């Protein structure tokens, strides 16, 4: 590149950045693509009939049944009857003609209606039936702001999921991720938070320097992340609702890979002190750090086991990166991954039974899941440079980052790898997704 073309290129970047400054950085507001890769023979068929409107309720901007259908489809455990294939439109249990839904081979049917409440509130009532038994399994209502009907719909999908599967649903959750727009030295970074399906993106922090490694606090109110805005990597903890934040680690060398303990009182992190990274645990009340590993290898990416007793981390002490486990109070580390040339960046399921990781073989990096009981590892992604897996709080799905040409995109894949949904940013690079814990109402 000559100096002149570089100047032109730099100018183009500058213009591109200025031009996009007014555009909200976030996921595409188009309906996300759902790509059912290997069939869903075992998925449960369910009909979600368009919800009715009680008289006086203004037509909503969100089709609640559409959102519920999309949620149930993307977790891989359900196959929702397509809207176009729905021929009858009951909105109450007593209006359901079960033979119709039996003929359509539906195991379950959901009907509901929206009722205008006081203020800006809407109450959404729904009923879930077992079609074969013609039996009502659930009849509940969820209230919310009219502007947050998507949130209400996700909560209904969670209740339906829990009633049928027996595990709490995780659709009404959020995801954090990092975006980067621009090239060379002119890149705009942002830490974003969106609904778990990619809607409603909000900027948590903007930076002209790289942002990395977002990690949620267990109450879902804060995010720890790495920023280079001070010239070197530093760890910040920021409250999402207020934007207030503080630097918790800015030592010489690397300050990276923050991870809140399950009780929220500690932060595991990687500190190099200018030499090489080891795992440390910081008491968030006193800011006192305890060194957990001491090795000339690169030790990083600590995550806590759900009981808070152990840390799983990445180390290249055997030559290539592999996962190790050590007591969170310090002690000997044990290697836990043995298949694949390299394994790194663990995400542990809520029950501790599975570990998702980025597995490398040659130049191919895919997300693999280790079953800790059997020791078996299974690849669940098909890309070439897949990384940063993050389990949903109920472990039904895994979010990860992949590349498409020069940019990064996010995928949400069912835990068995059969159903995957691509969440696309309108432009720029999306990376490092982190799935939030369960949400509490009012959050």
């Amino acid at each position, binding site marked *: 590149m000559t*100096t002149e073309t570089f100047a032109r290129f730099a100018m183009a970047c500058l213009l591109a950045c200025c031009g996009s400054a007014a555009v909200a950085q976030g996921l595409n507001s188009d309906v996300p693509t759902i790509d059912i890769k290997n069939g869903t023979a075992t998925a449960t068929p369910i009909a979600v009939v368009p919800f009715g409107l009680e008289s006086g309720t203004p037509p909503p901007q969100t089709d609640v049944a559409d959102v519920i259908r999309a949620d149930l489809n993307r977790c891989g455990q359900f196959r929702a009857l397509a809207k176009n294939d729905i021929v009858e439109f009951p909105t109450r249990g007593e209006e359901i003609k079960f033979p119709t839904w039996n003929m359509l081979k539906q195991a379950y049917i959901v009907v509901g209606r929206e009722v205008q409440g006081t203020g800006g509130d809407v109450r959404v009532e729904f009923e879930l039936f077992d079609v074969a038994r013609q039996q009502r399994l659930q009849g509940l209502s969820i209230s919310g702001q009219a502007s947050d009907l998507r949130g209400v719909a996700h909560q209904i999908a969670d209740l339906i999921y829990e009633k049928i599967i027996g595990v709490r649903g995780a659709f009404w959750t959020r995801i954090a991720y990092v975006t980067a727009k621009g090239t060379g030295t002119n890149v705009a970074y942002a830490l974003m938070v969106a609904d778990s399906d990619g809607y409603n993106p909000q900027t948590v922090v903007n930076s002209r320097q790289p942002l990395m490694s977002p990690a949620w606090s267990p109450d879902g109110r804060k995010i720890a992340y790495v920023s280079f805005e001070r010239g*070197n990597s530093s760890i910040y903890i920021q409250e999402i609702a207020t934007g207030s934040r503080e630097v918790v680690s800015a030592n010489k060398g690397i300050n990276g890979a923050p991870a809140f303990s399950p009780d929220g009182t500690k932060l595991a992190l990687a500190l190099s002190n200018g030499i090489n990274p080891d795992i440390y645990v910081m008491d968030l009340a006193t800011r006192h750090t305890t060194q957990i590993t001491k090795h000339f290898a690169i030790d990083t990416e600590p995550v806590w086991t759900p009981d808070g007793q152990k840390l799983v981390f990445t180390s290249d002490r055997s030559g290539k*990166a592999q996962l190790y486990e050590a007591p969170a109070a310090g002690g000997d580390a044990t290697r836990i991954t043995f298949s694949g040339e390299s394994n790194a960046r663990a995400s542990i399921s809520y029950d501790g039974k599975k570990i998702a990781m980025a597995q490398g073989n040659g130049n191919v990096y895919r997300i693999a899941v280790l079953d800790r009981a059997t020791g078996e590892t299974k690849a669940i992604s098909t890309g070439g440079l897949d990384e940063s897996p993050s389990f949903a709080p109920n472990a039904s799905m895994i979010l990860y980052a992949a590349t498409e040409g020069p940019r990064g995109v996010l995928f949400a894949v069912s835990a068995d790898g059969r159903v995957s949904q691509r969440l696309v940013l309108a432009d720029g690079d999306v990376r490092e997704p982190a799935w939030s814990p369960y949400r509490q109402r009012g959050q």
Partner: protein
Amino acid sequence: MKLPIRVILTAVIASVTLAACASKTKPVPVATDNGTQTTTTTTPPSNTGTYSVGDLDTDSCLRQRIVYFDFDKTDIKSQFQAAIGCHAKYLRQFPGARVTLEGNADERGTREYNLGLGERRGNAVSGALGSGGASASQLNTVSYGEERPVCKEHSEDCWQKNRRVEIVYTAKQ
């Protein structure tokens, strides 16, 4: 922070393309027979020779400020030893000069692991400069891991450009 990077980038581009417009002062532009211009190179310093501050912009050895690495490796290849020797000599001569060694990695491997790898590479160059006589107070390492690629294609051609340490002067004397 920003200015030195820009200075370096310009220097890098200039050194790659031998663009005539890059350096206005010291080097005497010499017209070649095909009409394009090239810069003169100063004589490589002997053990007794000394540098001037301006040599940072003009000396072909001091203008080499990027050290490239093999995949997942941190050892300095022989072809970069000479340039590191020149910078060590310069730093020895100007005790007030300061450099930041910006370590970088290609996109393979996880981001936090690559922060560690970039730091190892930065420390390798820092160590070599120290061995060459630079003092510890002149040397600072920052790892950017894979966060600052100069190239974003998924191929070895591109990856080899990203596996690098940039020697950035934050003070010249």
